[in-house]
């Protein structure tokens, strides 16, 4: 298996806050990797480093064997990396349609964009129903579907998801989890999934990393981690 992404020993600062202290992770072609960890552990920061929203202080990031760090955010998506940011960040005053079309901003092939659009609408029939509705009038769950769809519009090879279950009702969380599984299966996209809902994240991923205050504490096969006592204690809890 070839690595699509490898993050090597990166460090990242916010002013004087030391957010990532030498983190390395990698994602294989076609694989779903989960990233779990406490609040403020630095999960989002890793995604920001990958997408170029924040510069890394040291370390390197490789994507398909090529150096990625230093690429400006607006060019990262051109290389095939899409991100669904924390807190959804839909374009609130735009219609579902325009939101989705924004996802294809870097593409120029009209016909193929149509095709992708069709695929996305088929995958999320809810969006077809709400095609002309303004985004901010939709429920949180619908918006989450929409921004995932928006990310897919770029036809990414690597999809980064930052806490897609945040603030979403349990029933919808299940829907989203199913959608992620299906996307990985159908589109052959590699996925890096950041989640607080560790149970969900571990159950739909191949591998996982647990992050603790800016460095990797544990990593391994998701199924194994699910049964790991340390993970159980810290991230999963007992009942339900």
């Amino acid at each position, binding site marked *: 298996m070839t690595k699509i992404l490898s993050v090597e020993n990166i460090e990242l600062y*916010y*002013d004087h*806050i030391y957010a990532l202290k030498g983190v390395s992770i990698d994602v294989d072609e076609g694989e779903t990797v989960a990233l*779990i*960890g*406490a*609040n*403020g552990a630095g999960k989002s920061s890793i995604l920001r480093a990958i997408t170029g929203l924040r510069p890394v202080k040291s370390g390197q990031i490789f994507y398909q064997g090529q150096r990625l760090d230093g690429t400006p955010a607006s060019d990262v998506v051109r290389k095939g990396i899409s991100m669904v940011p924390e807190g959804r960040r839909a374009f609130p005053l735009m219609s579902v349609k325009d939101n989705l079309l924004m996802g294809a901003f870097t593409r120029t092939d009209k016909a193929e964009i149509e095709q992708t659009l069709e695929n996305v609408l088929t995958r999320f029939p809810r969006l077809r129903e709400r095609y002309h509705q303004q985004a901010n009038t939709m*429920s*949180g*769950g619908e918006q989450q579907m929409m921004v995932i769809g928006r990310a897919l519009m770029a036809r990414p090879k690597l999809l980064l998801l930052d*806490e897609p279950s*945040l*603030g*979403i*009702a*349990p*029933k*919808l969380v*299940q829907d989203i*989890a*199913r959608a992620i*599984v299906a996307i990985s299966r159908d589109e052959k996209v590699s996925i890096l999934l950041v989640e*607080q809902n*560790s*149970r*969900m994240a571990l*159950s*739909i991923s191949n591998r996982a990393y647990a992050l603790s205050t800016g460095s990797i504490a544990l990593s391994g096969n998701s199924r194994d981690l699910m049964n790991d006592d340390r993970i159980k*204690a*810290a*991230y*999963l*809890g007992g*009942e*339900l």
Partner: protein
Amino acid sequence: MSTILQIKNITKRYGGLTAVNDVSFDVNKGEILSVIGPNGAGKSTLFKLISSFVPATSGEVLFNGERISSLAPHKVARMGVVRTFQETTIFRSMTVRENIIVSHHLRSRASLFGFFLGTKQAKDDEAAFAASADDIVDFLGLQAIRNELASNLPQGHLRALGMAIGLATDPKVILLDEPFAGMNHDETMKMVGLVRRLRDERGVTVLLVEHDMPAVMKISDRIVCINFGQKLAEGTPQEIRENEKVIEAYLGSEDAAIGM
């Protein structure tokens, strides 16, 4: 057990949309009551109505038998019904300690003019606030970040700070909107412990909105479930967990395919 809050037939319309529709329930003194329901069901709106941040279209809220629905929000807060926000809301360019100190405002006995002149009363107040703020910092375990600028805090700490701000007002009823969102199990359980202590040690009645079911089931004395603005069910965690309507509308069933 006595009733501290009564929500009576409360309704809120935004234009054509009815966000909260004829909801009634009582809250007992010293209990922890959770409000659950799908996204957009009207939970946050309900909290805004209780704290009088938005005026109700009809219906009313009674606090200790007294009507509070049409009072200004600061008056409701003054009576002891205090709300924290869904999006973590803090004073961004103040330090943690400053945030907490300023939030003691309700407890001040000196007038604004007194503060301006720096009267003895004002100085006593300030000293008392500072001491109480340190208390709260200790209570919530925020010692390490007491002098950090709030805008530099991570999510988890922001929430704790939000709670601290709420505490500083010395509330009788506190409304927490999604206090566990974005926390992992470990942190959630710490927070659950805190909320419990809040009730046990300080006698505060707690209302909370949350999507994290394990936490809700663990912490709540009673649960109210809302759907499309209307009350769907009310009961103990056990009753709610088994309520078909709630499962149908909100909880969903376990899915073997994704192992949940």
